């Protein structure tokens, strides 16, 4: 016992003695004549704390069971599934177009890009080539979604670390995009924008001008947030060197999207497996160096700017023409035709009652969603309902790396790391 350091604790003092020093309460045993006060055994017992599922810092109904040694995280066990809705099972009982409302409810922070991904996968399965105008409009939808998703991420993450202002500024900007989204689709959250072979509706009058005006105005707000955060000592202290994943680890964990790119892996589906003619747009893919929370912030921040560039290019090139393919087996006929023309009525009836039949086969189509690689995998047996509808959930796979990232960090850093994953529980649980 003699090698134990002796300590004098001034906590729990009852007052001061005649020399003005605090009276300490003796701890431990006295050995022999020498008065030795032993340090109490600290750090041997691990503590278990439960965070969530109802907790603002878990960004949804995520539950984390954390084993702590003092304030240091020894182990994190995430529990998910509180929002499980069985979309993949439901999808086996739905027509392809009926799946689109389900995708709204997965990544509900970026519903339009989910819609686009599903339509593209179904079109790959059925071998449908969409029109030029539709392609450009879908690019606009995807990039609008990416921006609003990243804005929510940035705002809520800043709140998690105590910075309230960016949240208000960014949500104000997000509101403008939501207004545009509402004008286009009639809904703010459950957009159900696409249809197999086209879109639910063309953009309304004045949409282009408003989006263009917003693209000009919005970078100003971004610059202000940039000034608030990027070189802010508190922000850097909370985010730099936290939750590091090397490039090798990031690939090994199958991460995708900004999480993967922050670790220095230049994989972006838009560049590497291009769809919707993304290869013809001029934009950069930001790559991080350290793979920490700060780099994820920088990558997402730059992605917002690049998305604005893409939006401007898409608006410049937006061609006139139809938004739907000219195929009455896939696209519902005009309502007036369906009421007056026998043939159109039959097609209308068959589509609504029987759905669009897909050929036998299977297709996997990945798109670059805001959270990462969002893939839809269809297996068809030739009927109008898929045998298997699989969503490759980017947030689910990214979240799986949380226990590895949080090990050895402080409990408060766990909040930062969890925020940096950018989860949305609708997509994690599906």
């Amino acid at each position: 016992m003699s090698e134990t350091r002796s300590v004098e604790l001034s906590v729990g003092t009852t007052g001061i003695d005649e020399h003005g020093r605090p009276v300490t309460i003796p701890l431990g045993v006295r050995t022999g004549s020498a008065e030795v006060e032993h340090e109490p055994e600290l750090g041997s017992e691990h503590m278990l704390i439960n965070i969530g599922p109802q907790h603002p810092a878990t960004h949804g109904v995520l539950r984390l069971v954390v084993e702590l040694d003092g304030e240091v995280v020894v182990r994190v066990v995430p529990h998910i599934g509180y929002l499980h809705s069985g979309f993949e099972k439901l999808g086996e009982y739905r027509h392809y177009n009926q799946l689109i409302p389900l995708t709204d409810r997965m990544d509900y922070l970026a519903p339009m890009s989910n819609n686009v991904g599903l339509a593209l996968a179904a079109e790959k399965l059925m071998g449908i080539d969409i029109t030029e105008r539709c392609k450009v409009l879908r690019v606009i939808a995807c990039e609008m979604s990416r921006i609003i998703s990243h804005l929510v991420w940035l705002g809520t993450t800043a709140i998690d670390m105590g910075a309230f202002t960016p949240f208000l500024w960014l949500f104000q900007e997000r509101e403008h995009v939501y207004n545009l989204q509402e004008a286009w689709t009639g809904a703010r959250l459950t957009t159900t924008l696409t249809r197999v072979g086209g879109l639910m509706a063309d953009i309304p009058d004045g949409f282009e001008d408003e989006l263009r005006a917003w693209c000009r105005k919005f970078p100003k707000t971004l610059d202000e947030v940039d000034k608030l955060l990027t070189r802010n000592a508190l922000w850097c202290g909370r985010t730099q060197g936290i939750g590091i994943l090397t490039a090798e680890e990031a690939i090994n964990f199958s991460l995708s999207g900004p999480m993967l790119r922050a670790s220095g892996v230049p994989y972006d589906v838009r560049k590497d497996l291009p769809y919707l003619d993304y290869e013809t747009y001029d934009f950069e893919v930001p790559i991080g160096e350290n793979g920490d929370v700060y780099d994820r912030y920088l990558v997402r921040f730059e992605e917002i700017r690049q998305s604005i560039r893409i939006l401007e290019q898409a608006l410049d090139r937006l061609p006139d023409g139809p938004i739907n393919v000219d195929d009455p087996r896939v696209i519902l006929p005009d309502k007036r035709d369906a009421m007056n023309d026998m043939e159109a009525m039959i097609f209308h009836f068959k589509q609504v009652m029987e759905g669009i039949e897909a050929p036998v086969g299977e297709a996997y189509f990945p798109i670059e969603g805001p959270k990462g690689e969002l893939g839809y995998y269809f297996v068809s047996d030739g009927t109008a309902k898929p045998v298997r509808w699989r969503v490759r959930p980017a947030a689910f796979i990214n979240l799986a790396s949380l226990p590895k990232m949080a090990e050895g960090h402080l409990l408060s850093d766990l909040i930062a790391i969890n925020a940096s994953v950018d989860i949305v529980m609708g997509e994690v649980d599906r």
Partner: protein
Amino acid sequence: MTESPAAQAGATHPSVEALREAFGDTVTRATVSCGDTIVYVDASRIRDVLAWLKDTPGQDYNYLVDITAVEYRDVERPIEVVYNLLSLERKQPLRVKAELPKDGPLEIDSVVVLWRGANWLEREVYDMFGIRFRDHPDLRRILMWETYAEGYPLRKSFPLRGRFSRSEQMRQALNANPEAHYSMEELSIAEAYHNIPADMRDRLARGERAKIPEPPSETGGE
């Protein structure tokens, strides 16, 4: 073999030829569907095949995109475990499938040793299809709760509304016990392990988390 003859003829993916050379009969067949190349391999060697695809220079399928499973409406067809791979260097996707006949054990080797990202994906396949992954470090249910007793939701024999009635589901939810919320490891850290009823502790110690009734034999059993 449901692919069209044209798709069959198009199966000339370079990795498929290389796989056939390296593994011979392990590669049972290869097809192309909607431009995606699919290789069917013997389920007993799936880990060898994937390790080879991951580490062999020239193949470099270092990125595991997804693991999932497919059960067909045709009850005769085996369940397929699907591995979507991607070579990040060559931007080349490849889909590898292993077939598990329904009359045999639904078991396949885990690939967590190759990709740690496979951990949750395999747990999800186990949770939804009941396919057991050998040597998986932590094969627990993931989306459904650990004591979920109705079976495996994405199996075709599982009814859309669940196997239990609404009242039974409600009764179970109301009678949920602590082991439904914490894993055994967590209970032992919280020192609650010794406070739970003895029979529950015994079951946990045996590794039994819940009793899952066998589905009525519509598909000839598992």
